[in-house]
Every structure is written in C-alpha cells, then in structure tokens.
C-alpha cells in the first residue's frame, strides 16, 4: 500500500468515527438510545437496512463467487421482495401498535415470558457468534493479503466502531451507515469501471460480458434440474432462492433484532413500510451489479495471467509442504493454459467484432476446453491445500476480488477499496451489537430486575451492554478459524440453524390465533430446533444432502406442526395480543 492509500484509508475511517460521534446526541433514555426516538425518515431507514445486511463479506465474497461459480448466487435474494411484503402486512403493524423495543417482546404479549426468553436467547447466541465471524472474515483476508497482524486487524475491524455505537446508539449507527453506503457504492462503481478500463484496447464492456457468458459465468437463472430431476443439494437456483430465500429473509427481517431494530427507528409505521419495500426493490439489482463486477474480473483474467490460487498465504504453505513439486508443475501447466487462452481470446474478440459466427463458435469451443482444463487444475490445487499434508484452507473465493484490486488498481483506489471493507463491516457489526445490547437490556436485564430502574441508569447500562457485546465479538473473532467452506456460507449456515425455528414461533404468533398456549409453542420451538439439527447432520454426513437454505422452511414448519400437536396437551396461557 502506498502513502496515498493510507491517507484515503485512515481519512475514511477517522471521518466515519468523527461523524458517528457528531451524530451521537440522543436523549438519555432507552427509546433514544435503541430506537432513535422512532424519528428517522424512510430513506435513512432504507440505507440502514441495506447497510446492516451488506457486510464486508458481501462485497468480498460475491465478486469471487461470480468468478468461480457464476452469477447464480443472485437467486439467493429472490425471496427477499416477497418477504418484504409479508413483513409489511403482518409484522410491522403488530410491532408498531404494541410499541415494542425488541421483536421478542411481542412474544410475551402474545404467549408467555419463557417463549420470549427462549427466542431472544437464540437470537443472542446466533447473532453474537455470527457477528464475531463478521469481524474475523474480512480481517483474515486483509491480514493474509497485506501481511497485517490478525489480532490487530481484528481489533481495528471490531473495536473502533464501538466508540460511536456505544456513544450514540441507534441514531449514530443509522447516520454512519448512510455515509458508509454512499462511500461503498461510489467505490464499487469506480472498481467496476476500472475493470472495464483495464481490458485490452478494443475490448469493451459488452465484449467482456459475451466472453464470461460463453464461459458459463452469466448463469443468473438456473433451474436446479439435472438428469435425475430437481437437485435438492444445489445451493442456488430459482426454487431454492424463491422459497428458501423467502423464509430466510422473512426470518432475518421479521425476527432478527438487528433488522427489526432498524425499521423500528422509523418515525411512523408508513416510513418503516416504505423503507422495507424499497429494500425489496433495490436488493436484487444491487446484488446483481456486485456479482457483475466478479464476472468482469473473470473476463479481465482471460486477457491477463490469473494466479492458480488467489490466497498467497496458502500458496506459501503448499510450497513448504511435500506437495511443493506437484504444485509447481500444476502452476506451470496453469500458466501454459493461460498463454493459450490469451491467444484464443484475442481471436474470439475479433470474431465478435466482425460478426464471424463460424470463428466465434470455434474459438468458444476452444476457450471452453481450456477453461475446463484450468478449472480442473484449480480444483486439484484446492484439494492439495485441503489435504492433511498441507492442512490449509482450500477456498480462495473471498480473496479473488481483493487480489485483483491490490495487483491492478491504481494507488488511492486500493486504499478506498480497503476502506470499503472496513466500512461495510462496521455498518453491519454496529447494528448487530446495538441489537444485542437492546435484547440484553430489554428482554433480560429490565425484565428480570427486582426493582424499577431509573431512565438514566438504564441508559448507562445499555452503553455498558454495547461495550460488552463489542468486546465479545472481538474475542469470538480471535478464536474463529476456518469453520466452513466459504465464510459467507458459514455465516448463513449458522443463521439457518436457528432462523427457521425463531421464524416458526413468529408465524404461529401472527397467523395462528387459535394457538394460545405459550408452553406448547415453547416446546415446539425446542423440538423444531432438534429437527433442524437432525437435517443438518444428515446433510453434512451425506445421508440426505440438502442445500442449507431449505433448513429455514424445515425449522419454521416443524415449529408450526409441533405447536398444533402440543396445543392439545397444554392449556392456553394468553388471549391473542392485538
């Protein structure tokens, strides 16, 4: 990194902290601290919702995913607009009418205290751990690529945002997210423009699209069908995106306090709804554009030599292992294929410009064969790195985009892109620790306190909870390493284990007024969690392979089914709220 990069990076980070502190003036009570006095306009709510969902992993992993697997990952977001509508119809009016601070508060009004405690506890557990991973994920990437110390990187990634989150609560979180999103979108647009600019003379944006399309990277819509019918273990296709993605989004936006806490800050029910619906409109195109950058990077590497493996730390590991010679030969072969590809791809571009269909078809065939060869070499290298002889991490998806940025983008822009990684992290982590603190304070401390607590004292305690959860996430980050094939999936898998069950409880509460026994729902949630774990284990062991997105509907329907059965055994505890 050059001096210009450091100036841009440090300037952006210090600027955000200063802006967060400037916007920290809140009334010294719980509503001011956790809900910004329910005063924010829908535009700010929208950016806050988007900023909370889009972590650093989104911006690092998505282009890498497009590079390796194509654009089909975008289907994962197809269920989101559907979920936004259901949330606006059912969840928002209930939360607004009851003036709750946390989503789980509603469950006590609807059922009983233990159902609220259980769901809030599940939220604290999964969100606390996944936020720790959200600190660790970008830190390990920056640490590997830039040679930074992982402990210090974790500390900067998870620590500095605590300053403004602790001081200004939800208001500071929302305002900093607004500024962060502006910087992130500007930076990503610049990066995309630079990729096209770096293509050889005479090769433009649409040529790059034709090239990546012919090599299978523009597979935005996939059916998940193969010779044996629908493939349930296929992670991203139209059906899993619409159904699995719908349940995941419903759960995330309806029953996860880190999102519920964002739209509860809106100045009215109307502003909450508009913010959520706008999110439903913009999310899919936004993700499409981020993935498109990945396919452009893929096209760029057809004209330039790509590394056989993008994570240099793991390359150094294999070079010191007994597999060093095999790796060296694979690298040489990969470079040879790269040279052949560069010759053919020039011919492909000329054929495209001249409209020479015959030569286009011939060069496409050759390129596909060469790409297959390159892919199989990369697969072999990944397997070697994963093997016990090397004991490394064979997944470099999260490294592809940043490796490109560091190798090819000009000074200053590199600093901006690294700043984006920090800012995207801070946006989602700040919202998460604000939500974790609100649940700790409202669902546990205040609820189980023997005596009434003075508003000033509640405000001070909330700040301490914010600090405590911030430190907890840093500690988790320090201990996390390589828990899934891809970090983005690791976070989602963790979410899917609990999300479906929490959603099931909310669905029973909102749509099944006949079920009034809190005890039945409580036990149904525990049994539902066991069912989800069973499916997860069966899938992991290969007995019943299913994509992780399906765990959400399984969890939700299990809770609904068990609730219906168990309500016959337990008497009603409450009449329906609302």
């Amino acid at each position: 990194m050059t001096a210009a990069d450091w100036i841009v990076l440090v300037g952006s980070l210090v600027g955000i902290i200063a802006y967060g502190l400037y916007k920290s003036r809140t009334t010294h009570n719980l509503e001011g601290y956790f809900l910004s006095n329910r005063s924010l306009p829908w535009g700010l709510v929208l950016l806050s919702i988007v900023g909370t969902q889009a972590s650093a992993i989104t911006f690092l992993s998505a282009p890498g995913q497009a590079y390796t697997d194509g654009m089909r990952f975008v289907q994962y977001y197809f269920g989101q607009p559907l979920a936004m509508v259901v949330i606006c119809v059912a969840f928002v009016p209930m939360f607004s009418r009851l003036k709750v601070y946390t989503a789980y508060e509603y469950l006590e009004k609807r059922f009983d205290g233990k159902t609220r405690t259980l769901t809030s506890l599940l939220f604290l557990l999964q969100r606390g751990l996944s936020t720790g991973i959200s600190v660790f994920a970008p830190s390990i990437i920056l640490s590997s690529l830039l040679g930074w110390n992982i402990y210090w990187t974790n500390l900067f990634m998870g620590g500095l945002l605590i300053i403004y989150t602790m001081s200004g609560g939800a208001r500071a979180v929302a305002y900093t997210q607004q500024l962060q999103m502006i910087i992130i979108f500007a930076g990503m647009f610049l990066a995309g423009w630079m990729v096209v600019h770096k293509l050889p003379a005479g090769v433009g944006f649409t040529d790059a699209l034709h090239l990546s399309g012919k090599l299978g990277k523009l597979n935005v819509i996939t059916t998940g069908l193969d010779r044996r019918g629908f493939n349930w273990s296929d992670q991203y296709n139209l059906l899993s995106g619409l159904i699995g993605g719908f349940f995941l989004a419903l759960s995330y936006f309806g029953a996860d306090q880190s999102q519920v806490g964002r739209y509860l800050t809106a100045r009215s029910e109307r502003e909450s709804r508009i913010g959520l619906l706008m999110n439903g409109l913009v999310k899919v195109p936004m993700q499409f554009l981020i993935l498109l950058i990945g396919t452009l990077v893929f096209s760029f590497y057809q004209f330039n030599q790509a590394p056989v493996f993008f994570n240099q730390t793991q390359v150094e590991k294999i070079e010191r292992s007994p597999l060093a010679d095999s790796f060296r030969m694979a690298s040489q072969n990969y470079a040879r294929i790269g040279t052949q590809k560069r010759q053919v791809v020039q011919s492909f571009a000329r054929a495209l410009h001249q409209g020479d269909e015959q030569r286009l078809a011939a060069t496409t065939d050759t390129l596909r064969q060469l790409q297959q060869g390159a892919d199989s070499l990369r697969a072999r290298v990944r397997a070697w790195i994963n093997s016990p002889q090397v004991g490394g991490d064979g997944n470099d998806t999260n490294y592809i985009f940043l490796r490109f940025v560091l190798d090819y983008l000009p000074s200053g822009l590199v600093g901006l892109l690294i700043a984006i990684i920090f800012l995207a992290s801070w946006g989602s982590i700040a919202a998460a620790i604000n939500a974790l603190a609100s649940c700790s304070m409202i669902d546990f401390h205040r609820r189980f306190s023997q005596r009434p607590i003075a508003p000033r004292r509640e405000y001070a305690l909330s700040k301490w909870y914010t600090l405590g959860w911030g430190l907890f996430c840093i500690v988790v980050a320090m201990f996390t390493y390589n828990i899934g094939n891809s970090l983005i999936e690791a976070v989602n898998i963790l979410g899917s284990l609990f999300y479906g069950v929490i959603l099931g409880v909310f669905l029973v509460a909102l749509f099944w007024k006949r079920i009034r026994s809190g005890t039945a729902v409580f036990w149904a949630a525990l049994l539902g969690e066991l069912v989800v774990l069973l499916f997860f284990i069966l899938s992991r062991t290969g007995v019943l392979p299913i994509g992780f997105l399906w765990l959400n509907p399984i969890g939700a329907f299990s809770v609904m089914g068990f609730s219906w059965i168990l309500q016959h055994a337990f008497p009603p505890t409450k009449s329906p709220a609302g």
Partner: protein
Amino acid sequence: MAAQHTDRTPSPDKWGLWYALVLGVLVLLIGLFTLFTNYFS
C-alpha cells in the same frame, strides 16, 4: 394517540398497489435475467 394522528398510513388499497409494484418488479427482473442468461450463453 398523537402518534396515530401523525402516522399517515395509506389505506390498505394503496398499500396493495405498493405490494403489487414490488412483486411486479421481481417478476420483471426474473424475466430480464432469464433473457440475459440466454442471450449471453
């Protein structure tokens, strides 16, 4: 009660149009993405 007066929540019919817009855009996007996938493959 004051909050209810300032909350200019549109009638269910008006929200219905909003919901139709969001779902319509999703259908449109899936259609466009299908064309995009086929055109460039």
